[in-house]
């Protein structure tokens, strides 16, 4: 199962992953139209600690605690991907409370949001990886 892995050694803290993520999941064809003058809710975020930076997104855990704790049955894991059914999610954010990586976030509207590897959006594979200028984020089998 290919997943997104992060190597902080090469992370530049440029935050492009966040914007590429937000764009990929916007449903728009043009980045300007998708993101201009909007608050973005990317499913990956860059943490900074002084000069160290690294991107964090869903690890699609073997044993996903968010799925277990979801009170609405909106989170599930299928074919190795932890997904969220926004239709079922009521936005209680228990998932935010339990994700040990801080990789599930409250988004606009009622639902939580998280990385689903861009498998179902127009990008087809993780946009953060495609757009990373320094291979700090990779999508591979490990």
């Amino acid at each position: 199962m290919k997943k997104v892995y992060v190597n902080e050694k090469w992370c530049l803290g440029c935050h492009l992953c966040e914007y590429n993520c937000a764009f990929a999941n916007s449903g728009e064809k043009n980045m300007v139209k998708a993101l201009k003058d909007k608050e973005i809710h990317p499913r990956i975020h860059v943490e900074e600690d002084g000069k160290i930076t690294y991107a964090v997104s869903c690890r699609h855990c073997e044993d996903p605690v968010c799925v277990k704790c979801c009170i609405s049955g909106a989170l599930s894991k299928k074919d190795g991907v932890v997904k969220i059914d926004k239709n079922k999610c009521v936005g209680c954010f228990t998932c935010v409370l339990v994700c040990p990586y801080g990789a599930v976030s409250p988004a606009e509207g009622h639902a939580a949001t998280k990385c689903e590897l861009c498998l179902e959006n127009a990008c087809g594979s993780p946009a953060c990886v495609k757009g990373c200028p320094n291979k700090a984020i990779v999508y591979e089998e490990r």
Partner: protein
Amino acid sequence: MNDIYINPEFEVVRNDSRCIRCRVCERQCANEVHSFDADGKVMISDESKCVNCQRCVSLCPTHSLKIVKSDCRLKENANWQDQTIKEIYKQANSGGVLLSSMGNPNPLPVYWDKILINASQVTNPSIDPLREPMETKVFLGKKPSVIDRDCNGEIINNLTPQIELSMPVMFSAMSYGSISYNAHKSLALAAQKLGILYNTGEGGLHEDFYVYGDNTIVQVASGRFGVHEKYLMAGKAIEIKMGQGAKPGIGGHLPGAKIVGDVSKTRMIPEGSDAISPAPHHDIYSIEDLRQLVYSLKEATAYKKPVIVKVAAVHNIAAIASGIARSGADIIAIDGFRGGTGAAPTRIRDNVGIPIELALAAVDKRLRDEGIRNNVSLVVGGSIRSAADVVKAIALGADACYIATAAVLALGCHLCRTCQTGKCNWGIATQNPELVKRLNPEIGSQRLINLMTAWQHEIKELMGGMGINSIEALRGNRLMLRGVGLNEKELEILGISHAGQ
């Protein structure tokens, strides 16, 4: 003193209708040109700091940026041109020597562009490199003039150590210190994968890179930085650097600010001390002295390593090369006046030295005339820009080419020519860890491999077109070259006919 006479050289043009305020430009500019104004929610620029490296342009996800040359100009004057006047202002302000980086940018003749390559038609067939074998492998080193046999008639191997290259290109000297760890690693990795060599420059060899020793040329220069027995033994060959195309006749100066951590350790000098390479080697005042150093190094390495002597292309280069060829050196490297540098006095870079094309032709002819061409291999550098330049250099008599500017371009260099500031936004000419990490050697080495692979294909196609199937058969084959727009003297020195002849 703030210099009111110097206006920003560039303008940052932002298409605000496209800018999404992701601030990648701000985060990626080590010169702090861009900043975000939270009140007005706009990006603002301080153009006085811009060096036109275009890191921001490249990373802007919506392509909303461009950097243009400011059209703010002084009154036109063919003699007192804008640049000339600005330099006067700078010196009037600083009282110092002007510093520049990379190669001579001035519009002096590029002979490569005035030389054209032949192709086969009708009378001798061209070769399709996709269908027929095409050899780009070369061996550098002294070639024996006689075949020795033992009493049974078997050939005695009297070959001195040779360098085997998969193609006639090597990465030329750039020191660890002038360029980053990751840049070095990219070069080393690529050289290893490609079966060619890279060159340490005068910065010693970082202990992490000893594993790439078989693809490394270790340099001994006038400062002797980082030179020790293990270092000499680590490389495939040893290069004595007498001069450099970008700054013939002067030494080098890596400021103490860059002598930090591993750079200091690798150079074997204290942290923070300026690394000053003297203009001459203080023990070399003659060919005889050079010979002593060549043999000292050979002695130190048990005659297992070929020794390269690198000189800048200057007047009388043919005579100098003749002397080197008699010094025991195995290879002569000649660096033309367009060669790059991490920092050089501007006047030297732009006014000293001669074009590599003329130097190469003159040296090759002189060594042939003197019957000592096989004593040495010839490697030329100083702005080899493409596979065509390589082919022309080989046909003019070179055994192989050195490239450095092309290599750093492959690594992302945008030739902004401000290496001397140490704030390279591409992670190449810097020791700032935050900037160094911008060059991931996995990406860098792959781009170098791609470039060299592409050139190799092109070299094969050009050779195939001439009906030549090996570098060996192309070397010194000046009949394959013709000049355009060159005068009699130039053609005479280059040893080629004019196009149409």
